């Protein structure tokens, strides 16, 4: 009698485990794994990282990084919904990709030497250029970082900012009290409450944090750039095929912007391509997909679904969003920025 009970319990236990999808793939050819699985495992955040990966009031993921996840899912699988966003903290992103819980890290991850080498990771070309700034409480009246001598500086734990700030402060012999938080939420509420005199971080994050403050005027971004950090998309060492797709996807988004191809006019241009390279980009003449192991219209699908780089930027962090970030360095080379597409031949 008891045995049958135990057996039934075991069955229930098995069922509950089965419910939690067996997913993770180990090292090997991740691109093939993604295609076989039919969905891409991409990074979210443990909470909201404003402008890049945030949870809206309906519980859906939004933001710049999320758009890139959707773009990648579209490129590989043809649909932005073939995507599972895995909520993950800063500290967990590297173990998570090493273990196969996620396929790629698209989480404004700075390209540093130790990560590139010791962690067994590979970076794509930068898809975002992030200058590090300091934002302080306006009431302190600081106009440079040196004015904040002795203040409490808050940062996200386990990010490059932690080290970059320590370096900068020591180089400029400024005394400060560091404080680091595991989640962006806790960091923000500490700042709003005045626990921190200043926070250091990557520019767009500071700007979005400021916009969301109960009183945005109470916070001021100080002009000194601590360091410029190129942010790349990260895959496991040995995932060359996937890395190729990512690099060319970033390039396609930039090229679309350079050539004036938008979500709205992509069908029109595709029907009547003005140049051979655009013909290739939109898959009118074959080859652009096959080389990457994708269908030829992948770039067309991506642009149709998420738009070009500029559109993504505007929608999530730029003019069309609440954050109103200027393009700055993240503009195309011919508009005073640092970004450029590769040559599509």
């Amino acid at each position, binding site marked *: *009698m*008891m*045995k*049958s*009970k*135990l057996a*039934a*319990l*075991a*069955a*229930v*236990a098995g*069922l*509950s*485990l089965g*419910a*939690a*999808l*067996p*997913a*993770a*793939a*180990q090292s090997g050819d991740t691109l093939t794994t993604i295609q076989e699985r039919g*969905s891409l495992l991409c990074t*979210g955040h*443990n*909470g*909201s990282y404003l402008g890049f990966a*945030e*949870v*809206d*009031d*309906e*519980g*859906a*993921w939004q933001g710049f990084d999320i758009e890139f996840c959707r773009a990648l899912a579209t490129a590989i699988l043809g649909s932005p919904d073939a995507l*599972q*966003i*895995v*909520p*993950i*903290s800063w500290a*967990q992103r590297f*173990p*998570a990709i*090493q*273990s*196969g*819980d996620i396929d790629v890290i698209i989480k404004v991850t700075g390209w540093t030497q130790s990560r590139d080498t010791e962690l067994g990771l590979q970076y794509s070309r930068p898809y975002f250029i992030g200058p590090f700034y300091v934002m302080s409480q306006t009431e302190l009246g600081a106009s440079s970082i040196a004015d904040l001598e002795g203040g409490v500086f808050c940062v996200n734990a386990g990010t490059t900012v932690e080290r970059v700030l320590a370096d900068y402060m020591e180089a400029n012999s400024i005394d400060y009290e560091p404080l680091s938080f*595991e*989640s*962006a*939420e806790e960091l*923000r*509420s500490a700042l*709003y409450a005045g626990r921190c005199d200043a926070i250091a971080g990557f520019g767009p994050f500071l700007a979005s944090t400021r*916009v*969301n403050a*109960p009183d945005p005027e109470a916070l001021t971004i100080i002009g000194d750039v601590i360091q410029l950090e190129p942010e790349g998309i990260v895959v496991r060492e040995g995932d060359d095929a996937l890395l190729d797709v990512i690099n060319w996807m970033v390039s396609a988004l930039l090229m679309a912007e350079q050539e004036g191809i938008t979500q709205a006019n992509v069908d029109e241009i595709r029907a009547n391509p003005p140049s051979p390279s655009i013909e290739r980009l939109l898959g009118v003449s074959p080859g652009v997909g096959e080389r990457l192991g994708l269908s030829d219209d992948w770039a067309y699908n991506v642009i149709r679904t998420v738009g070009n780089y500029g559109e993504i930027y505007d929608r999530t962090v730029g003019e069309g969003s*609440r954050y109103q970030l200027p393009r700055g360095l993240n503009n195309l080379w011919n508009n005073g920025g640092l970004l450029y597409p590769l040559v599509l031949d």
Partner: protein
Amino acid sequence: MTDVVTPSEHLPPPQNTWGEWIWKSFFGSVSNTLFTLAFGAFVVWVLSSVAGWMVLDAVWRVEDRDLCGHGAGACWAVIEDRWRLIFFGLYPYEEQWRSSIACLALALTIVLSCVPKFWSVRRLPVLWLAGFSVFVALMRGGFAELTLVTTEQWGGLSLTLFIFASVFLIGMPLAVVFALARRSSFPVIAKGMGVFIDVVRSLPLLAILFSAAVVIPILVPDWLQSSKLARVIVAFAVFFAAYQAEIIRAGLQSLSEGQEEAALSLGMPYWSVILDILMPQAFRNTLPSTINQAVITFKETSIVTVIGFFEIMASGRAVIGTDEWGAQFVEIYVFLGLVYFVFVFGLSRYGAWLEKRMRVGHG
């Protein structure tokens, strides 16, 4: 004199009317009166400020949100505006009715299994199998008209309940195995299990769950890989089992050895003796401790928020994290506290009721 040392429960039963008894307990002696007056003033002050903040001066409706932060009261408008985010987390907005029904089904299963009528070898597993199937089918979908919702999108109260129920269900049989292994007649197994249980018990749950989330995938071969939620639940279950095993072992020790010997000498097989004779008694004897362990487990599900699951605690914090309601952190925390309180207090009262019931049964 002796009233200082005599525990209240050993006082003679009140012979006077209730009124007199209450009067006496407040103002029975000089020191009592002084204490009552001084401490009473403090209690009244605390109660009135809490009531003022929570009820009297509170802002209830979203329309009145402009009043928030100006008065002294709580701003419950935030709950009205964002309750769906709190209760459902990342679950797709249009599909949230599924999450609520699933949640109800699981809650009903838990409540029904607390009713002694269902404590039979046949009913309990059937009940849980049904409850869990309904829950998983609704939450996950992927058949008929229901769209597939993967575990990464599960969230809010239903995820909390799911983690709790799964940990309990997987942990309980594990605990039985652990307890039996620990009192095994083979010294190597008994000692080994003892060491294992002690090690697990001295590690923080957060560290164990974190390791399950990030380390296990590196250590196990491909064919054993599973999703993060599954790993975390199994690790949590092992932690639960290490505690529960000690409770069961205590229950087994409280039984007289004669029973086991008698049953064995009647020719009953070992497993039958364990499962049909010893375990039911051990379980009954340790029900209060088991319920207590369940209570602790329910509260500790909140820890998974740290490793990136959007159960109710994380969903609540997501509300504070968004623009509009950042200042209403106290309201959110109090509300979350109340939600946990409802479940945990219910469970612990149930435990107390069971204990009383058992005492009556034995008496």
